[in-house]
């Protein structure tokens, strides 16, 4: 089970019907198989599969918009991302996407995979992404998700 906590989930009026906003706190702990995959971002169990929030959002959803709650600029030491190819003290977190499988089709399991990536300065100089890192033992960030519940429920 990934270490994810639902901080708040509320009905968001004014952007169309059944629009919901949720704040999710993702906290990385050494007891889990956390890591970072260059190309997809932070993951909780399997490289490339992000952080699964299915347990927090069991309802079928669509049209997800995401945003990392500030501060987005974070010390690389916050995530064990130091000592690798990111240069300097800081990196910048960015919501990349959320992959959704609402139903159990073809023997698969429903999921809502959150992908957050870290960028910074790399040799060149250039603007680049953090390299693979496994394991990650600590760190945390908060994302704000906005989505439409297909059921019409307010969540």
């Amino acid at each position, binding site marked *: 089970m990934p270490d994810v906590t639902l*901080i708040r989930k509320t009905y*968001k*009026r*004014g952007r169309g019907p059944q629009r919901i906003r949720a*704040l999710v706190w993702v906290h990385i702990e050494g007891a889990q198989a956390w890591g970072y995959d260059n190309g997809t971002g932070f993951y909780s169990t399997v490289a490339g599969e992000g952080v699964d929030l299915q347990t927090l959002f069991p309802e079928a959803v669509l049209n997800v918009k995401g945003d990392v709650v500030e501060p987005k600029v974070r010390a690389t030491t916050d995530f064990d991302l130091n000592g690798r190819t990111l240069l300097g003290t800081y990196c910048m977190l960015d919501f990349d996407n959320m992959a959704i499988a609402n139903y159990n089709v073809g023997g698969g399991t429903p999921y809502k995979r959150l992908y957050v990536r870290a960028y910074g300065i790399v040799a060149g100089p250039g603007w680049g992404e953090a390299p693979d890192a496994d394991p990650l033992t600590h760190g945390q960030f908060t994302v704000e998700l906005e989505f439409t519940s297909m059921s019409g429920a307010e969540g």
Partner: protein
Amino acid sequence: MAPTVALVRKSLMRGRGPQRVRAIVSVTFGAQQAGAYEALKGFLDAAGGEGVDVQSVIFEPIMNIAVANAGYGTVGSVIEPRLSLLSSWTGFTTNLLGTHGILDFFKIEANNYAAGGGPYKRIYVRLYGMKAGPLFEEASTDAALTGGSFQVELEYTPCSGAEA
């Protein structure tokens, strides 16, 4: 003189729980409203001081719980563009290379009442960019900041329940 802070908009934000308020605040530094910048803290009211105090525009008591702990914390965000032209700051030697830096909301500290030096609501916004190396670093401390501005959006829960 502290930098000028102006309330651009403050309105009840429905749908984020009861009495959730959103405020957009502009912060402007000028020759008569000088401020400072301190690495690890951000933009300050004055050299050696604290974050920019917005008490004059958000004077009501607000909940001040870290967002990681509950759903009532104050969420802050720099209104884009967050990529700031370094030359737009007057009297500020950032020691950042290139033409731009990144503004980032760091935190707010609120003391609602007179006890303990209050009341105040201090916002801390920091500036980052590239330094020699190259390295991704924060702007350097500078005690003379006489021009420049940014806007932040704050979302908070007032203790009174008033819509503000």
